[in-house]
Protein backbone atom coordinates (compact mmCIF):
# COMPACT_ATOMS: atom_id res chain seq x y z
CA UNK A 1 0.00 0.00 0.00
CA UNK A 2 1.57 3.23 -1.08
CA UNK A 3 1.15 6.73 0.26
CA UNK A 4 -1.56 7.52 -2.29
CA UNK A 5 -3.72 4.65 -1.10
CA UNK A 6 -3.36 5.69 2.54
CA UNK A 7 -4.25 9.25 1.64
CA UNK A 8 -7.35 8.04 -0.21
CA UNK A 9 -8.48 5.88 2.71
CA UNK A 10 -7.99 8.74 5.18
CA UNK A 11 -9.83 11.13 2.87
CA UNK A 12 -12.78 8.72 2.75
CA UNK A 13 -12.66 8.51 6.56
CA UNK A 14 -12.68 12.31 6.80
CA UNK A 15 -15.59 12.63 4.40
CA UNK A 16 -17.47 9.93 6.33
CA UNK A 17 -16.89 11.83 9.58
CA UNK A 18 -18.02 15.11 7.99
CA UNK A 19 -21.14 13.34 6.66
CA UNK A 20 -21.81 11.91 10.10
CA UNK A 21 -21.66 15.36 11.71
CA UNK A 22 -24.03 16.81 9.10
CA UNK A 23 -26.36 13.79 9.51
CA UNK A 24 -26.52 14.16 13.28
CA UNK A 25 -26.99 17.92 12.99
CA UNK A 26 -29.93 17.83 10.57
CA UNK A 27 -31.43 14.46 11.59
CA UNK A 28 -32.84 13.95 8.06
CA UNK A 29 -35.18 11.12 9.06
CA UNK A 30 -36.80 13.41 11.65
CA UNK A 31 -36.34 11.05 14.59
CA UNK A 32 -33.80 11.08 17.38
CA UNK A 33 -33.66 9.26 20.70
CA UNK A 34 -31.64 10.30 23.71
CA UNK A 35 -31.47 8.53 27.02
CA UNK A 36 -29.87 8.78 30.41
CA UNK A 37 -29.51 5.95 32.90
CA UNK A 38 -28.80 5.84 36.60
CA UNK A 39 -26.35 4.60 37.71
CA UNK A 40 -24.57 6.20 34.76
CA UNK A 41 -22.58 3.94 32.43
CA UNK A 42 -18.87 4.79 31.84
CA UNK A 43 -18.44 7.73 29.51
CA UNK A 44 -15.56 6.40 27.39
CA UNK A 45 -15.66 9.12 24.73
CA UNK A 46 -16.00 11.92 27.31
CA UNK A 47 -19.22 13.08 25.64
CA UNK A 48 -21.25 15.89 27.19
CA UNK A 49 -24.42 14.01 26.29
CA UNK A 50 -27.85 15.35 25.47
CA UNK A 51 -29.78 15.08 28.71
CA UNK A 52 -28.57 17.51 31.35
CA UNK A 53 -28.38 17.01 35.10
CA UNK A 54 -31.36 17.35 37.37
CA UNK A 55 -31.74 20.77 38.97
CA UNK A 56 -32.04 22.23 41.58
CA UNK A 57 -29.39 20.01 43.14
CA UNK A 58 -30.89 20.19 46.65
CA UNK A 59 -33.98 18.29 45.46
CA UNK A 60 -32.08 15.37 43.90
CA UNK A 61 -29.50 13.06 45.41
CA UNK A 62 -27.14 11.54 42.88
CA UNK A 63 -24.50 9.18 44.23
CA UNK A 64 -22.08 7.10 42.20
CA UNK A 65 -23.50 3.66 41.45
CA UNK A 66 -27.00 4.55 42.67
CA UNK A 67 -30.31 5.60 41.17
CA UNK A 68 -31.17 9.32 41.11
CA UNK A 69 -33.31 10.06 44.17
CA UNK A 70 -35.83 12.89 43.80
CA UNK A 71 -36.81 14.30 47.19
CA UNK A 72 -38.33 17.68 46.26
CA UNK A 73 -40.76 19.22 43.84
CA UNK A 74 -40.32 20.08 41.05
CA UNK A 75 -37.08 19.01 39.39
CA UNK A 76 -35.95 20.08 35.98
CA UNK A 77 -33.70 18.65 33.30
CA UNK A 78 -32.82 19.97 29.89
CA UNK A 79 -32.42 18.05 26.66
CA UNK A 80 -30.17 19.36 23.91
CA UNK A 81 -31.41 18.68 20.41
CA UNK A 82 -29.50 19.59 17.25
CA UNK A 83 -32.74 20.87 15.64
CA UNK A 84 -36.37 21.44 16.54
CA UNK A 85 -38.88 18.61 16.77
CA UNK A 86 -42.65 18.63 16.99
CA UNK A 87 -43.12 15.88 19.54
CA UNK A 88 -41.24 14.31 22.42
CA UNK A 89 -42.16 10.93 23.83
CA UNK A 90 -40.68 10.76 27.30
CA UNK A 91 -40.40 7.36 28.95
CA UNK A 92 -39.36 7.30 32.59
CA UNK A 93 -38.45 4.14 34.48
CA UNK A 94 -38.75 4.71 38.21
CA UNK A 95 -39.35 3.22 41.60
CA UNK A 96 -42.19 4.87 43.47
CA UNK A 97 -41.37 5.29 47.17
CA UNK A 98 -43.86 8.12 47.67
CA UNK A 99 -46.36 8.42 50.50
CA UNK A 100 -50.14 8.84 50.33
CA UNK A 101 -49.63 12.61 50.65
CA UNK A 102 -48.00 12.72 47.22
CA UNK A 103 -50.12 10.53 44.93
CA UNK A 104 -49.41 12.29 41.63
CA UNK A 105 -46.36 12.24 39.37
CA UNK A 106 -46.32 14.36 36.22
CA UNK A 107 -43.82 15.32 33.55
CA UNK A 108 -43.90 18.27 31.22
CA UNK A 109 -42.09 20.64 28.94
CA UNK A 110 -41.58 24.40 29.27
CA UNK A 111 -43.98 26.22 26.95
CA UNK A 112 -43.82 29.78 28.24
CA UNK A 113 -40.61 31.28 29.56
CA UNK A 114 -42.26 34.55 30.68
CA UNK A 115 -44.61 33.02 33.22
CA UNK A 116 -42.43 29.90 33.52
CA UNK A 117 -45.27 27.57 32.56
CA UNK A 118 -44.78 23.88 31.93
CA UNK A 119 -47.39 21.81 30.13
CA UNK A 120 -47.69 18.82 32.44
CA UNK A 121 -48.94 15.36 31.54
CA UNK A 122 -49.53 12.64 34.17
CA UNK A 123 -47.09 9.81 34.66
CA UNK A 124 -48.93 8.25 37.59
CA UNK A 125 -52.00 9.09 39.66
CA UNK A 126 -52.29 6.80 42.68
CA UNK A 127 -55.78 8.14 43.48
CA UNK A 128 -57.09 6.78 40.18
CA UNK A 129 -55.00 3.59 40.29
CA UNK A 130 -55.68 2.67 43.93
CA UNK A 131 -58.60 4.60 45.47
CA UNK A 132 -60.87 4.14 42.46
CA UNK A 133 -59.60 0.67 41.55
CA UNK A 134 -63.00 -0.92 42.28
CA UNK A 135 -64.93 1.42 39.94
CA UNK A 136 -66.07 0.28 36.51
CA UNK A 137 -63.49 1.17 33.87
CA UNK A 138 -64.10 2.00 30.22
CA UNK A 139 -61.38 3.06 27.87
CA UNK A 140 -61.37 4.70 24.45
CA UNK A 141 -57.79 5.29 23.32
CA UNK A 142 -56.13 7.28 26.06
CA UNK A 143 -59.47 8.44 27.53
CA UNK A 144 -60.49 6.59 30.66
CA UNK A 145 -64.00 6.70 32.14
CA UNK A 146 -64.55 5.45 35.68
CA UNK A 147 -68.11 4.91 36.85
CA UNK A 148 -69.15 4.26 40.45
CA UNK A 149 -72.30 2.51 39.20
CA UNK A 150 -72.18 1.41 35.59
CA UNK A 151 -74.65 3.51 33.59
CA UNK A 152 -72.87 3.90 30.25
CA UNK A 153 -71.59 1.20 27.93
CA UNK A 154 -68.97 3.32 26.16
CA UNK A 155 -66.96 6.48 26.62
CA UNK A 156 -68.63 8.02 23.54
CA UNK A 157 -72.07 7.44 25.07
CA UNK A 158 -70.99 9.19 28.26
CA UNK A 159 -69.44 12.12 26.37
CA UNK A 160 -72.63 12.61 24.37
CA UNK A 161 -74.68 12.61 27.59
CA UNK A 162 -72.22 15.07 29.11
CA UNK A 163 -72.33 17.37 26.12
CA UNK A 164 -76.11 17.36 26.12
CA UNK A 165 -76.26 17.54 29.92
CA UNK A 166 -78.63 14.59 30.17
CA UNK A 167 -80.86 14.86 33.20
CA UNK A 168 -80.23 11.29 34.31
CA UNK A 169 -76.45 11.75 34.12
CA UNK A 170 -76.11 12.82 37.74
CA UNK A 171 -78.40 12.50 40.73
CA UNK A 172 -77.03 15.73 42.25
CA UNK A 173 -75.10 18.78 41.01
CA UNK A 174 -73.15 18.01 37.83
CA UNK A 175 -70.10 19.91 39.15
CA UNK A 176 -69.97 17.56 42.17
CA UNK A 177 -70.72 14.28 40.42
CA UNK A 178 -68.04 14.42 37.73
CA UNK A 179 -64.34 14.89 38.27
CA UNK A 180 -61.75 15.31 35.56
CA UNK A 181 -58.10 14.65 35.23
CA UNK A 182 -55.81 15.92 32.48
CA UNK A 183 -58.70 16.55 30.12
CA UNK A 184 -57.02 19.06 27.79
CA UNK A 185 -58.49 18.55 24.37
CA UNK A 186 -61.82 17.33 25.76
CA UNK A 187 -62.99 20.91 26.30
CA UNK A 188 -65.59 20.69 23.54
CA UNK A 189 -67.42 18.05 25.58
CA UNK A 190 -67.47 20.08 28.75
CA UNK A 191 -70.69 21.95 29.32
CA UNK A 192 -69.01 24.35 31.76
CA UNK A 193 -69.70 27.41 29.63
CA UNK A 194 -73.41 26.77 29.77
CA UNK A 195 -73.35 26.13 33.50
CA UNK A 196 -72.63 29.71 34.44
CA UNK A 197 -75.72 31.43 33.21
CA UNK A 198 -75.93 34.02 35.93
CA UNK A 199 -74.21 37.32 35.16
CA UNK A 200 -72.60 38.65 38.31
CA UNK A 201 -72.43 42.46 38.20
CA UNK A 202 -68.96 43.94 38.01
CA UNK A 203 -67.50 45.99 40.80
CA UNK A 204 -64.19 47.78 40.20
CA UNK A 205 -61.17 45.87 41.51
CA UNK A 206 -58.76 48.25 43.18
CA UNK A 207 -56.44 45.64 44.69
CA UNK A 208 -53.20 45.98 42.68
CA UNK A 209 -52.06 42.64 41.25
CA UNK A 210 -48.47 42.04 40.15
CA UNK A 211 -47.52 40.12 37.00
CA UNK A 212 -49.58 37.65 35.01
CA UNK A 213 -53.17 36.95 36.08
CA UNK A 214 -56.09 35.07 34.58
CA UNK A 215 -59.78 35.60 35.32
CA UNK A 216 -63.12 34.01 34.49
CA UNK A 217 -65.98 36.24 33.54
CA UNK A 218 -69.44 35.79 32.06
CA UNK A 219 -70.80 37.68 29.12
CA UNK A 220 -74.20 38.28 27.62
CA UNK A 221 -74.32 38.50 23.83
CA UNK A 222 -75.27 41.84 22.28
CA UNK A 223 -73.86 43.70 25.25
CA UNK A 224 -70.38 45.25 25.10
CA UNK A 225 -67.34 43.29 26.17
CA UNK A 226 -65.48 46.35 27.40
CA UNK A 227 -62.58 46.39 29.81
CA UNK A 228 -60.58 49.27 31.28
CA UNK A 229 -57.29 48.68 33.07
CA UNK A 230 -54.88 50.96 34.93
CA UNK A 231 -51.34 49.60 34.89
CA UNK A 232 -48.11 50.60 36.62
CA UNK A 233 -44.69 49.76 35.18
CA UNK A 234 -42.24 49.58 38.11
CA UNK A 235 -39.20 49.55 35.78
CA UNK A 236 -37.11 47.52 38.22
CA UNK A 237 -35.95 44.79 35.83
CA UNK A 238 -33.70 45.34 32.83
CA UNK A 239 -36.10 43.97 30.19
CA UNK A 240 -38.89 45.90 28.51
CA UNK A 241 -42.38 45.20 29.85
CA UNK A 242 -45.00 44.50 27.22
CA UNK A 243 -48.50 43.56 28.35
CA UNK A 244 -50.54 41.01 26.39
CA UNK A 245 -54.28 40.99 27.02
CA UNK A 246 -56.08 37.93 25.65
CA UNK A 247 -59.62 36.60 25.78
CA UNK A 248 -60.37 32.90 25.53
CA UNK A 249 -63.58 31.03 24.86
CA UNK A 250 -62.91 27.52 26.13
CA UNK A 251 -59.36 26.78 24.99
CA UNK A 252 -59.57 28.98 21.91
CA UNK A 253 -57.95 32.41 21.95
CA UNK A 254 -60.48 34.74 20.34
CA UNK A 255 -58.86 38.11 21.01
CA UNK A 256 -55.37 39.38 21.78
CA UNK A 257 -53.92 42.84 22.16
CA UNK A 258 -50.28 43.63 22.90
CA UNK A 259 -49.36 46.88 24.61
CA UNK A 260 -45.69 47.46 23.80
CA UNK A 261 -43.38 49.12 26.28
CA UNK A 262 -42.02 51.98 24.22
CA UNK A 263 -41.15 54.24 27.12
CA UNK A 264 -37.80 52.77 28.19
CA UNK A 265 -36.42 53.65 31.62
CA UNK A 266 -35.78 49.98 32.41
CA UNK A 267 -33.95 49.29 35.70
CA UNK A 268 -34.32 52.99 36.60
CA UNK A 269 -37.05 52.46 39.17
CA UNK A 270 -38.98 55.24 37.48
CA UNK A 271 -42.63 54.34 37.87
CA UNK A 272 -44.89 54.84 34.85
CA UNK A 273 -48.68 54.69 34.97
CA UNK A 274 -50.79 53.97 31.92
CA UNK A 275 -54.38 53.04 31.12
CA UNK A 276 -55.60 50.55 28.55
CA UNK A 277 -59.18 50.21 27.28
CA UNK A 278 -60.14 46.96 25.55
CA UNK A 279 -63.26 46.51 23.48
CA UNK A 280 -64.39 43.33 21.75
CA UNK A 281 -67.68 42.17 20.31
CA UNK A 282 -68.07 38.49 21.16
CA UNK A 283 -70.70 36.57 19.21
CA UNK A 284 -72.12 34.36 21.95
CA UNK A 285 -73.04 34.49 25.61
CA UNK A 286 -71.33 32.32 28.20
CA UNK A 287 -68.14 31.86 30.09
CA UNK A 288 -64.91 33.51 28.96
CA UNK A 289 -61.37 33.75 30.26
CA UNK A 290 -59.33 36.93 30.41
CA UNK A 291 -55.54 36.67 30.52
CA UNK A 292 -53.25 39.58 31.35
CA UNK A 293 -49.75 38.38 30.62
CA UNK A 294 -46.89 40.55 31.86
CA UNK A 295 -43.62 40.38 33.72
CA UNK A 296 -43.19 41.19 37.40
CA UNK A 297 -42.51 44.87 36.61
CA UNK A 298 -46.15 45.30 35.63
CA UNK A 299 -48.81 45.85 38.26
CA UNK A 300 -52.51 45.75 37.31
CA UNK A 301 -53.29 48.74 39.49
CA UNK A 302 -57.03 48.82 38.95
CA UNK A 303 -59.63 47.11 36.80
CA UNK A 304 -62.24 49.79 36.18
CA UNK A 305 -64.52 48.04 33.75
CA UNK A 306 -65.43 44.47 32.80
CA UNK A 307 -68.57 42.79 31.44
CA UNK A 308 -69.17 40.94 34.74
CA UNK A 309 -67.51 40.11 38.04
CA UNK A 310 -64.06 38.55 37.67
CA UNK A 311 -62.73 35.55 39.58
CA UNK A 312 -58.98 35.04 39.51
CA UNK A 313 -57.89 31.62 38.27
CA UNK A 314 -55.40 29.70 40.42
CA UNK A 315 -53.09 32.59 41.29
CA UNK A 316 -53.18 36.04 42.89
CA UNK A 317 -50.34 38.37 43.79
CA UNK A 318 -51.66 41.46 45.59
CA UNK A 319 -49.12 44.28 46.08
CA UNK A 320 -49.10 47.90 47.26
CA UNK A 321 -52.64 47.64 48.64
CA UNK A 322 -53.95 50.97 49.97
CA UNK A 323 -55.91 49.59 52.90
CA UNK A 324 -55.18 46.38 54.77
CA UNK A 325 -56.33 43.79 55.69
CA UNK A 326 -57.66 42.41 52.39
CA UNK A 327 -59.87 39.39 51.78
CA UNK A 328 -60.47 36.92 48.97
CA UNK A 329 -62.86 33.97 48.73
CA UNK A 330 -62.12 30.48 47.46
CA UNK A 331 -63.72 27.02 47.51
CA UNK A 332 -60.41 25.19 47.34
CA UNK A 333 -59.27 22.99 50.23
CA UNK A 334 -55.77 24.44 50.22
CA UNK A 335 -53.79 27.55 49.46
CA UNK A 336 -50.11 27.84 48.69
CA UNK A 337 -48.63 31.07 50.02
CA UNK A 338 -45.20 32.47 49.22
CA UNK A 339 -43.59 35.81 49.85
CA UNK A 340 -40.23 37.18 48.80
CA UNK A 341 -40.63 40.13 51.14
CA UNK A 342 -39.68 39.69 54.83
CA UNK A 343 -42.04 42.57 55.70
CA UNK A 344 -44.96 40.44 54.47
CA UNK A 345 -44.46 37.62 56.96
CA UNK A 346 -47.69 37.27 58.92
CA UNK A 347 -50.43 35.12 60.32
CA UNK A 348 -53.13 34.82 57.68
CA UNK A 349 -56.63 33.50 58.10
CA UNK A 350 -58.04 30.81 55.83
CA UNK A 351 -61.65 29.78 56.46
CA UNK A 352 -61.55 30.81 60.12
CA UNK A 353 -58.23 29.13 60.89
CA UNK A 354 -54.99 31.02 61.39
CA UNK A 355 -51.86 29.95 59.54
CA UNK A 356 -48.38 31.34 59.97
CA UNK A 357 -46.41 32.51 56.97
CA UNK A 358 -43.15 32.61 58.91
CA UNK A 359 -40.41 32.45 56.31
CA UNK A 360 -39.63 34.37 53.12
CA UNK A 361 -38.73 32.58 49.87
CA UNK A 362 -40.54 29.44 51.01
CA UNK A 363 -43.86 28.10 49.77
CA UNK A 364 -46.26 27.27 52.60
CA UNK A 365 -49.24 25.00 52.14
CA UNK A 366 -52.29 25.71 54.27
CA UNK A 367 -55.07 23.10 54.35
CA UNK A 368 -58.71 23.56 55.25
CA UNK A 369 -60.86 20.65 54.12
CA UNK A 370 -64.17 22.21 55.17
CA UNK A 371 -66.59 22.20 52.26
CA UNK A 372 -67.88 25.50 50.86
CA UNK A 373 -66.56 28.97 50.17
CA UNK A 374 -63.83 30.10 52.55
CA UNK A 375 -62.50 33.57 53.21
CA UNK A 376 -58.78 34.26 53.00
CA UNK A 377 -57.69 37.33 54.95
CA UNK A 378 -54.23 38.84 54.56
CA UNK A 379 -52.77 41.37 57.00
CA UNK A 380 -49.93 42.24 54.61
CA UNK A 381 -49.73 42.24 50.83
CA UNK A 382 -46.89 41.17 48.49
CA UNK A 383 -47.84 37.51 48.78
CA UNK A 384 -48.31 34.98 46.01
CA UNK A 385 -51.48 32.96 46.66
CA UNK A 386 -52.11 29.83 44.62
CA UNK A 387 -54.63 26.99 44.66
CA UNK A 388 -56.36 24.61 42.26
CA UNK A 389 -59.47 26.73 41.84
CA UNK A 390 -60.44 30.36 41.83
CA UNK A 391 -60.28 33.42 44.09
CA UNK A 392 -63.06 35.99 44.07
CA UNK A 393 -62.79 39.58 45.27
CA UNK A 394 -66.17 39.57 47.07
CA UNK A 395 -68.16 36.73 48.64
CA UNK A 396 -71.30 37.54 46.65
CA UNK A 397 -69.35 37.47 43.35
CA UNK A 398 -67.95 34.02 43.90
CA UNK A 399 -68.42 31.58 41.05
CA UNK A 400 -66.30 28.63 40.04
CA UNK A 401 -67.29 27.24 36.64
CA UNK A 402 -64.70 24.47 36.72
CA UNK A 403 -65.29 20.80 37.27
CA UNK A 404 -63.30 19.23 40.07
CA UNK A 405 -59.84 18.08 39.08
CA UNK A 406 -58.30 14.99 40.65
CA UNK A 407 -55.31 16.59 42.28
CA UNK A 408 -53.55 15.50 45.45
CA UNK A 409 -56.08 17.28 47.65
CA UNK A 410 -59.06 15.69 45.96
CA UNK A 411 -61.59 14.17 48.36
CA UNK A 412 -63.61 11.27 46.96
CA UNK A 413 -67.02 12.08 48.45
CA UNK A 414 -70.35 10.30 48.07
CA UNK A 415 -71.58 12.70 45.35
CA UNK A 416 -68.84 11.66 42.94
CA UNK A 417 -70.19 9.29 40.28
CA UNK A 418 -67.83 9.61 37.31
CA UNK A 419 -64.20 10.34 36.65
CA UNK A 420 -63.06 11.20 33.15
CA UNK A 421 -59.32 11.18 32.63
CA UNK A 422 -56.78 11.23 29.86
CA UNK A 423 -54.52 8.82 31.61
CA UNK A 424 -52.61 5.58 31.16
CA UNK A 425 -51.66 3.58 34.24
CA UNK A 426 -47.90 3.02 34.29
CA UNK A 427 -46.59 -0.37 33.35
CA UNK A 428 -45.16 -2.40 36.23
CA UNK A 429 -41.83 -4.01 35.40
CA UNK A 430 -39.40 -6.06 37.50
CA UNK A 431 -38.20 -5.23 41.02
CA UNK A 432 -41.02 -2.79 41.82
CA UNK A 433 -40.00 -0.55 38.96
CA UNK A 434 -42.63 1.17 36.88
CA UNK A 435 -42.41 2.61 33.42
CA UNK A 436 -44.60 5.48 32.28
CA UNK A 437 -44.65 7.24 28.94
CA UNK A 438 -45.94 10.71 28.19
CA UNK A 439 -46.23 12.33 24.80
CA UNK A 440 -45.47 16.04 24.83
CA UNK A 441 -46.07 18.55 22.09
CA UNK A 442 -42.78 20.37 21.53
CA UNK A 443 -44.04 22.45 18.60
CA UNK A 444 -44.92 25.30 20.95
CA UNK A 445 -42.30 24.44 23.57
CA UNK A 446 -39.71 27.04 24.51
CA UNK A 447 -36.20 26.15 23.31
CA UNK A 448 -33.14 28.14 24.30
CA UNK A 449 -29.58 27.49 23.12
CA UNK A 450 -30.79 24.26 21.51
CA UNK A 451 -32.27 22.96 24.75
CA UNK A 452 -35.80 22.04 25.73
CA UNK A 453 -36.54 22.25 29.43
CA UNK A 454 -38.44 19.37 31.01
CA UNK A 455 -39.93 19.01 34.47
CA UNK A 456 -40.77 16.08 36.71
CA UNK A 457 -43.32 17.15 39.28
CA UNK A 458 -44.51 15.36 42.41
CA UNK A 459 -46.73 18.01 44.02
CA UNK A 460 -46.17 18.19 47.76
CA UNK A 461 -42.91 16.24 47.75
CA UNK A 462 -40.36 17.70 50.13
CA UNK A 463 -37.87 16.42 52.68
CA UNK A 464 -40.52 17.07 55.36
CA UNK A 465 -43.10 14.93 53.55
CA UNK A 466 -40.60 12.07 53.30
CA UNK A 467 -40.89 9.65 50.39
CA UNK A 468 -38.85 9.75 47.23
CA UNK A 469 -38.85 8.85 43.59
CA UNK A 470 -35.95 6.78 42.31
CA UNK A 471 -35.19 7.40 38.65
CA UNK A 472 -33.56 4.58 36.76
CA UNK A 473 -33.84 5.75 33.18
CA UNK A 474 -35.12 8.66 31.12
CA UNK A 475 -35.61 8.14 27.41
CA UNK A 476 -36.71 11.00 25.17
CA UNK A 477 -37.79 10.08 21.65
CA UNK A 478 -38.12 13.17 19.49
CA UNK A 479 -39.93 13.18 16.19
CA UNK A 480 -40.52 15.90 13.65
CA UNK A 481 -40.38 16.76 10.00
CA UNK A 482 -38.05 14.77 7.78
CA UNK A 483 -35.63 16.47 5.39
CA UNK A 484 -37.89 15.36 2.53
CA UNK A 485 -40.90 17.02 4.21
CA UNK A 486 -38.90 20.22 4.50
CA UNK A 487 -37.78 20.10 0.85
CA UNK A 488 -41.39 19.47 -0.26
CA UNK A 489 -42.57 22.42 1.86
CA UNK A 490 -39.92 24.73 0.32
CA UNK A 491 -40.84 23.65 -3.20
CA UNK A 492 -44.55 24.20 -2.50
CA UNK A 493 -43.90 27.65 -1.02
CA UNK A 494 -41.96 28.61 -4.20
CA UNK A 495 -44.68 27.19 -6.46
CA UNK A 496 -47.44 28.99 -4.59
Amino acid at each position, binding site marked *: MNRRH*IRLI*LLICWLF*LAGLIVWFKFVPLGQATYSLSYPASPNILG*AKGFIGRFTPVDRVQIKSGELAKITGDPVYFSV*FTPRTFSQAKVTITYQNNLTAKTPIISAGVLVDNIVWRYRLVPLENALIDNELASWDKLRNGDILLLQKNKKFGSVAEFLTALKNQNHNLCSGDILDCIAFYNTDGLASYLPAETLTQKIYPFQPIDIPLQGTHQFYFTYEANSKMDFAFDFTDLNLNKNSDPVVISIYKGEEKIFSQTIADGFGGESSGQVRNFSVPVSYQAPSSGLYKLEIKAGDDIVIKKINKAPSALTAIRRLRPVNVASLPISFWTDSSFILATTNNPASLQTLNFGGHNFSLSEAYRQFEFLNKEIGIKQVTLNHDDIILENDGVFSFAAEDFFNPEFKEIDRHFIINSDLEYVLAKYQTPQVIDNNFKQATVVLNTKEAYREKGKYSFMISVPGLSLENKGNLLISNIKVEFSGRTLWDKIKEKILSYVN
Partner: protein
Amino acid sequence: MLIKVKKNIILEIFYFLSAVLLLLIGSEIIWPNSVLAYLNINYVAVLWFLAWLLLL
Protein backbone atom coordinates in the same frame (compact mmCIF):
# COMPACT_ATOMS: atom_id res chain seq x y z
CA MET B 1 13.57 2.66 3.58
CA LEU B 2 11.15 1.14 6.14
CA ILE B 3 11.62 4.11 8.46
CA LYS B 4 10.83 6.45 5.59
CA VAL B 5 7.61 4.55 4.78
CA LYS B 6 6.56 4.61 8.45
CA LYS B 7 7.33 8.32 8.64
CA ASN B 8 5.19 8.92 5.55
CA ILE B 9 2.28 7.02 7.10
CA ILE B 10 2.58 9.01 10.32
CA LEU B 11 2.78 12.21 8.28
CA GLU B 12 -0.45 11.26 6.48
CA ILE B 13 -2.10 10.43 9.81
CA PHE B 14 -0.91 13.76 11.17
CA TYR B 15 -2.47 15.60 8.20
CA PHE B 16 -5.64 13.55 8.62
CA LEU B 17 -5.89 14.32 12.34
CA SER B 18 -5.22 18.01 11.64
CA ALA B 19 -8.10 18.01 9.13
CA VAL B 20 -10.30 16.10 11.58
CA LEU B 21 -9.52 18.59 14.36
CA LEU B 22 -10.34 21.49 12.05
CA LEU B 23 -13.59 19.78 11.06
CA LEU B 24 -14.61 19.07 14.65
CA ILE B 25 -13.68 22.52 15.99
CA GLY B 26 -15.28 24.23 12.97
CA SER B 27 -18.49 22.22 13.39
CA GLU B 28 -18.58 22.99 17.09
CA ILE B 29 -18.17 26.73 16.39
CA ILE B 30 -20.89 26.78 13.71
CA TRP B 31 -23.27 24.38 15.45
CA PRO B 32 -22.59 24.42 19.20
CA ASN B 33 -22.69 21.02 20.92
CA SER B 34 -22.88 19.16 17.59
CA VAL B 35 -19.59 17.41 18.38
CA LEU B 36 -19.10 17.75 22.15
CA ALA B 37 -22.41 15.99 22.77
CA TYR B 38 -20.87 12.84 21.28
CA LEU B 39 -17.12 13.17 21.80
CA ASN B 40 -14.52 15.07 23.78
CA ILE B 41 -12.35 16.80 21.17
CA ASN B 42 -9.40 16.71 23.58
CA TYR B 43 -8.95 13.01 22.81
CA VAL B 44 -8.43 13.79 19.12
CA ALA B 45 -6.09 16.66 20.07
CA VAL B 46 -3.97 14.23 22.13
CA LEU B 47 -3.74 11.82 19.17
CA TRP B 48 -2.80 14.70 16.90
CA PHE B 49 -0.10 15.80 19.38
CA LEU B 50 1.29 12.23 19.59
CA ALA B 51 1.46 12.04 15.80
CA TRP B 52 3.35 15.35 15.77
CA LEU B 53 5.80 14.06 18.43
CA LEU B 54 6.48 10.95 16.36
CA LEU B 55 7.32 13.13 13.39
CA LEU B 56 10.04 14.99 15.28
